[in-house]
């Protein structure tokens, strides 16, 4: 049976209208509803299903972030994960934390915890990087299966169906492996209230990047964060000829 590691990131809830800080150095997070990154929920669900099918023996959820990151670990525990690891990163440092940092930390934990399968969301809905799974595989020098829509575990390998442009690709990877979850992999369950109560008793280990030997000092500087341009009002034109003329004028058609 496999030991599975899942990554869970705390992001601003998908339903929240994002607002930018007055100094344009980031987005407002205080008092804003946060949730587990939806793709990470899919990763957790897949791991829990593996455990229910007796394919996985233990599931560990990791979140890198400030103290509130524990909220999403608790959610993962309530969904059926066995234990959590919180990599404590001060809020200020978290703003400039990059996928490379996270992948190094995940790689170290994967080795320490002797996991066989790492499942991560394909991207986080806040920064949309889509890098962490790939980089984690690279740091570990393990095979990678990204954008998975189906995972079947064999004895010493996994068969993963990947969503690629224009179709599906089926690949087979040796274990250990890093997989990233795509939207159609599964439909995550919601945590039931009794499981939320039980999750309170499950352990969360707290570590620092230093414990994992990772230097999280900022490598980038946020110069400016801007709102998307506001949509300009449309105009009604009298006929098709005017429309064609306008489109040509704007350079939209040759």
């Amino acid at each position, binding site marked *: 049976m496999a030991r599975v590691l899942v990554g869970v990131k705390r992001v601003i809830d998908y339903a929240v209208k994002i607002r930018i800080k007055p100094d344009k150095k980031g987005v407002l997070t205080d008092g804003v509803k946060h*949730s587990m990154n939806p793709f990470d929920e899919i990763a957790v669900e897949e791991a829990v299903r593996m455990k229910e099918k007796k394919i996985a023996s233990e599931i560990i959820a990791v979140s890198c972030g400030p103290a509130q990151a524990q*909220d999403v670990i*608790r*959610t993962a525990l*309530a969904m059926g994960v066995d234990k959590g690891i919180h990599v404590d990163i001060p809020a200020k440092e978290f703003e400039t934390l990059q996928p490379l940092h996270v992948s190094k930390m995940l790689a170290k934990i994967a080795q320490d915890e002797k996991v066989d399968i790492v499942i991560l969301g394909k991207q986080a809905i806040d920064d949309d990087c889509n890098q962490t799974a790939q980089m984690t595989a690279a740091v570990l020098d393990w095979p990678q299966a990204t954008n998975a829509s189906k995972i079947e575990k064999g004895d010493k390998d996994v068969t993963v169906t990947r969503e690629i442009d224009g179709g599906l690709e089926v690949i087979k990877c040796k274990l250990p492996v890093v997989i990233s979850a795509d939207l159609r992999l599964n439909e995550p369950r*919601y*945590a*039931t*209230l*009794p499981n*939320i*109560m039980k999750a*309170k008793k499950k352990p969360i280990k707290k570590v620092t990047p230093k414990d994992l030997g990772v230097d999280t000092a900022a490598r980038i500087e946020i110069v400016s964060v801007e709102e998307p341009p506001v949509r300009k009002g449309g105009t009604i034109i009298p006929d098709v000829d005017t429309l064609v003329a306008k489109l040509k004028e704007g350079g939209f058609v040759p």
Partner: protein
Amino acid sequence: MLKIARIFQIVERVQSAQLQRFLSTAPVLCGKTVQARAVAEKKPAPEEDLSFVMNVFKGQVESTQIFPFPKTLTEEQRETLEMMIDPTQKFFEEVNDPDKNDALEKVADESLKGLWELGAFTLQVPQDLGGLGLNNTQYARLVEIVGANDLGVGIVLGAHQSIGFKGILLFGNKEQKEKYLPRVSSGEFAAFCLTEPSSGSDAGSIKTRAVLSEDGKHYILNGSKIWISNGGLAEIMTVFAQTPVQDPKTGKTIDKVTAFIVERSFGGVTNGPPEKKMGIKCSNTAEVYYDNVPIPVENVLGGVGNGFKVAMNILNNGRFGMAAALSGTMKTCIKKAVDFATQRTQFGQRIDNFGGIQEKIAKMSMLQYVTESMAYMISGNMDSGSKHYHLEAAISKCFASEAAWYVCDEAIQIMGGMGFMKHTGLERIMRDLRIFRIFEGTNDILRLFVALTGIQYAGASLRELQQAFKNPAANLGLIFGEASKRVVRKVGLSSPPAIEHLVHRDLVGAATMLAKEIDSFGQTIEMILIKYGKGIVNEQFILNRIANATFDIFSSAVALSRASMALSENSDTATHEKLMAQAWTLEAMDRVKINLQYILRGQNLDNFQKMSAISKNVCTAGGVVQLNPLKI
């Protein structure tokens, strides 16, 4: 004036002397602790009732349970609750379908299974017995979600845990709890079986009887119950029945109500088909019959002969939940109405620009605000161990059910023809809401309960005063205290209770109005007691108006407390809440004035006689008395 001031001085001196005497005679458990506690909590004399509503009947403000707005959740309880909200909400948005449940006249299988898995049936059962161990405030927050989405499901859940097995939680002994609570937490339905064909509001008149078997090991239960929610599903029932009890004074055997835990598997328990109802159709309502059901004696709940107390406590304990659920329902109605009003254009304007619509939306919002505040105030007080919340809970049930009806009705009115269409969703809500004014104590009976309990309390304090006059030397403090109040009233100086210091400074004006009406209310009650004495029990025209005045006073105090909290925390919605509290209090105090006037003015009292006569005529005629103007 000088004389009055002197009386005050004397009174103060006497009172403080009395207080010292009380402290020195207090039981010395541990001298320091008792005194420290007395100082810290200003511990009242034991017979004092801390209910705000109760004390309003004496024209006094008992503020402990109302100001400041109770905040009882610990950090951990708050976190747990926060985690529970999303999954509960998601369940109701994605899995449960209220229209489907309504059409099926039962909770759809998938949804029912999901509710059991979710833990929705066992919110307050202790964790070690298979439940979630939530307190009343946490419970209120979750049922608010239920009420916002599906009141029918709300009744299935409520009939199970708010009344069905609540008796076991409140009165069960260790064995009963350990035996039954895990079962009602894991798939077995519970029901509360009190009402009978000939016994509705008059719960003491039930005919179902349980008689001890000859070997003394069982009670044999016979009778039938009607309109039992979950009656067709329940495996475990709290059943109320008359049992013969020997009166310790006279030695005679009399019937007294006893509560029993009855399992369907005991044998002899059957039920009728599900009733066809106006609303809450997905909940099962059925008659339940008991034919020589043997109940082991250890299944007596709360002691033989204590059944009436058990029943009333269960009902009192669950009432805040209705206010919480219905505040959620009102939110849903308001959302629908506002979505419509902010998009609909007529006469070249969005209709939310019109004063007529604005007044509706404002009133709907205030009713929701007051109901929600009542629910959380009561749950908060219950969580901090209050025993004095019964009148408040009764008011919250009446208020919430009437407010929700009004809000839903006005939402339909704002939406016009669209509101009348089934697919808008308000039609089902309106049908579902109707029962809330009827069940778990009709609003009419609860109004009498509030008025009479309060009057009795005020009357007792008057009697105490009469007693005190028999031995004035020993009761100087009491006499001077009351006498000075009366003197001040007589000389025309108003002595409204102090309340302004309890609210945020922006609400002092409203608080002053409230204090003034509390004072007039107390005086009115005193006059009524003098005028009618015990006879007041039969004056329902008057009692109803007293109850309505109480509702307005309590609701205003609650709104002022909640808005004060928002203002002092400087919350985002503080200004909005302030507007609502101010607008509500002014209108409520106007209504109090009118209600008190009706009680005292001869012309209105005469009108009560007229109405009584009209009713008698109609009842004698068996319907409308007069012919139409055409006489054909």
